[in-house]
């Protein structure tokens, strides 16, 4: 058996790829559901209705999708330039804690219109800083950033845990380790009354379009895409590889930090160590499912959020562990990898 590069790739195939991948993942997960003794189609129907069956569930799904769009974009932007940022989870937490601390201790009392943008900036910078460490290790000592960003996730989470159990601890929380609630003016306005859905969703979608615009329309975007697709060709065309990578890292880390900021300002208002159910890691899957396309990230994040919210509901009524959502999402990543491969290669003999 041999593989041969395809000369032509039809647009249809490219669009169908993620759909096929998701279908394959759902089929395999379906086997696992069946093995657990539950009716498969009913289970999937339950997932769908639990995610979108009511106003409450639909807004909940969209609320879950917001941070996923941002962490997905963080991964997509980095991966496109072949910067393997797996540290989204740590950057998310660092952004969240930085913004909440800034709101409580620095900007308390500032009006929303001023405070919220300031906090966004603080959170984004915190995420950037955390990614610049492994990037500089890569550029100076050629240390693989995959492992360092992964390890920093644990460091960041412990750091946050230390802060909310120490200097930033809320004295009014009956001893629970959590940060003080942010200033009321720092809370993000709701998108819909009587729901948790906040303007973070709108911001995330706007940023997705913005990234798409940057990647396709700006000099930097075109250069960084070239650097990721073909470094050697980019160098020949005069693209400064190192500088491009630093800017990409700042955008990627910044987006993950912003995701944490928006989550804390939009949903809870304070930081705990379970602020994120793995948004940073799921962002990687979201990016891969979207084939690194920023607009695709919005759809992939929606799919992932649907699985997570839907599986919660399905689990309660059918006794299938909620982890089926994680399994399905992981399987979609693997089948997406294989599907993308077969859009590029065909089997010979």
């Amino acid at each position, binding site marked *: 058996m041999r593989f041969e590069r395809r*000369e*032509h790739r039809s647009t249809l195939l490219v669009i169908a790829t993620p759909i096929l991948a998701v279908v394959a993942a759902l089929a395999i997960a379906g086997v696992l559901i069946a093995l657990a003794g539950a009716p498969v189609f009913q289970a999937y129907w339950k997932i769908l209705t639990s995610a979108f069956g009511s106003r409450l569930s639909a807004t909940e799904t969209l609320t879950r999708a917001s941070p996923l769009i941002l962490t997905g974009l963080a991964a997509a932007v980095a991966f496109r330039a072949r910067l393997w940022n797996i540290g989204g989870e740590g950057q998310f937490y660092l952004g969240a804690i930085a913004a909440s601390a800034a709101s409580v201790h620095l900007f308390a009392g500032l009006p929303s219109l001023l405070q919220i943008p300031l906090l966004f900036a603080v959170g984004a910078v915190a995420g950037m800083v955390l990614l610049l460490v492994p990037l500089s290790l890569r550029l100076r000592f050629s240390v693989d950033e995959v492992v360092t960003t992964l390890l920093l996730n644990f460091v960041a989470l412990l750091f946050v845990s230390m802060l909310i159990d120490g200097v930033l601890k809320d004295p009014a929380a009956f001893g629970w380790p959590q940060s003080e609630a942010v200033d009321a003016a720092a809370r993000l306005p709701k998108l819909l009354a009587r729901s948790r859905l906040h303007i973070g969703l709108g911001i995330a979608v706007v940023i997705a379009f913005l990234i798409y615009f940057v990647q396709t*329309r*700006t*000099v930097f*975007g075109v250069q960084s895409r070239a650097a990721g697709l*073909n470094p*050697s*060709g980019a160098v020949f065309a*005069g693209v400064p590889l190192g500088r491009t990578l630093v800017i990409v890292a700042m955008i990627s880390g910044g987006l993950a930090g912003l995701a944490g900021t928006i989550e804390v300002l939009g949903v809870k208002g304070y930081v705990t160590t379970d602020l994120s159910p793995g948004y940073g890691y799921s962002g990687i899957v979201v990016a891969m499912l979207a084939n690194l396309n920023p607009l695709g990230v919005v759809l992939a994040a929606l799919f992932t959020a649907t699985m997570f919210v839907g599986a919660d509901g399905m689990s309660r009524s059918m006794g299938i562990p909620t982890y089926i959502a994680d399994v399905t999402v992981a399987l979609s990543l693997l089948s997406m990898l294989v599907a993308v491969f077969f859009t590029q290669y065909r089997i010979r003999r």
Partner: protein
Amino acid sequence: MMTETVLDISNVSKRFGDNLANDDISLSLAKGEIVALLGENGAGKTTLMSILFGHYVPDTGSVSVMGEALPPGKPRAAIRAGIGMVHQHFSLAPNLTVLENVMTGTENLWSLGSNVSAGRKKLVEISQRFGLKVDPDARLGDLSVGEQQRVEILKALYNDARILVLDEPTAVLTKLEAETLFSTLKDMAAQGLSLIFISHKLDEVMATADRIVVLRGGKLVAERRAGDTSKAELAELMVGRKVTRPLREASTPGEIVLEAAGVTVRSGGVDRLKAVDFRLRAGEVLGIIGVSGNGQAVLAQLLSGTIGRTAGDLVLFGKGVGDLTVADAVANGIGRIPEDRNRDGAIGEMAIWENAVLERLPEFSKAGLVDRKAGIGFAQKIIDGFDVRGGTPTSRIRLLSGGNMQKLILGRNLIEHPKILLAAQPARGLDEGAVAAVHERILEARRAGTAVLLISEDLDEVMALADRIQAIVGGRLSPSVNAEDVDAQRLGLMMAGEWEDTTHAV
């Protein structure tokens, strides 16, 4: 002398698409004989050796070793029959020791221990017998290139090779190393081994081989005993054709636009370019000929602005420029056609228009925003003006055929009438029609006053386009000769590094 035939290649043909790489070639090798295989790039030498070694299956014909037919397309069978191959690019692992490199795969994989002492004994024995001195326990990466080649030869001998094929064995060696190698090879032949070596260098061929076989255009065109021929005859046989006068009108070269004086580029501890001199004038084509791997790529990279120099001066339009950057090159009107268009010349997954403007984005952007419309217009102009077929400005450049991609690359460089054009292997891998189109464009640019530096391994191409010619051998450039005054023999000698006696620089 007893002539026992050990290898018999009979009537071998091999076709790749339209290209007949080997055309009915027959060749035999006697025990203890050294045969040199001489020919230009693309003459079919490598194909023939790949068939011998079982990497390719011939369309017709057969190979037999010691009277027994070799099953086609089976490298293992070739090894077992006693054929050893020493590639130009070594198949070695720098982090392992010499002994480990040699012993890989020679023992039963599942035995619980490796009989290292027996292996070492055998290796030492062989290396003493043939005078291939090497420390079995040295890390391969710490050895010089010459020593690494010795390890490659030892590897073949360790597998009991009786017939040794060496592909361009001296391409990477210093003069001294090469001399040592050839005395070793003669010694091996005297001990009953048979050798084939592939070469372009007339000196070493004349000095070492018993018999010389010349390939040209896939055909075996001549066979000479070393004593019955001369370097001059071989050079002419190798290049072959009556030198065709190019169809280009005379031009009066203008002022010097680019000059290199004593430029050296060192990387990885080796001088890739050695004190290179040339002068390029407006309105002329300077052709750099040479066999691949002699420093052409480094020269092209240097002038494209992707690598810096170690010593010497580059003078652009009368001003010293130190190191060129890509931005300098583009801003100064230097058009660049890279040697490998897929690797360096295009980002396959990006649109044609993006590829057209990538190196000159500042021109096509305002406040950091790419002017897509202008870019598309620019790409359309190239497509129309340079007859690029098979794509629109917004389709991916990967979808273009090689020839059309090259026309696009040519177009993005020529459309703004550059003062200088660097063209590295501009017609490599293209079909006849595309070659003609590319050549036409280059001559047109010359007519318009562009100074063209043409780096090519294709003699026909250089003869068709160049006004003056310099040869590059081992990172050194020969003095230039007028294309009008040169004949096949002279070019063959130049490419073999024999220019000391022909120094009338122009």
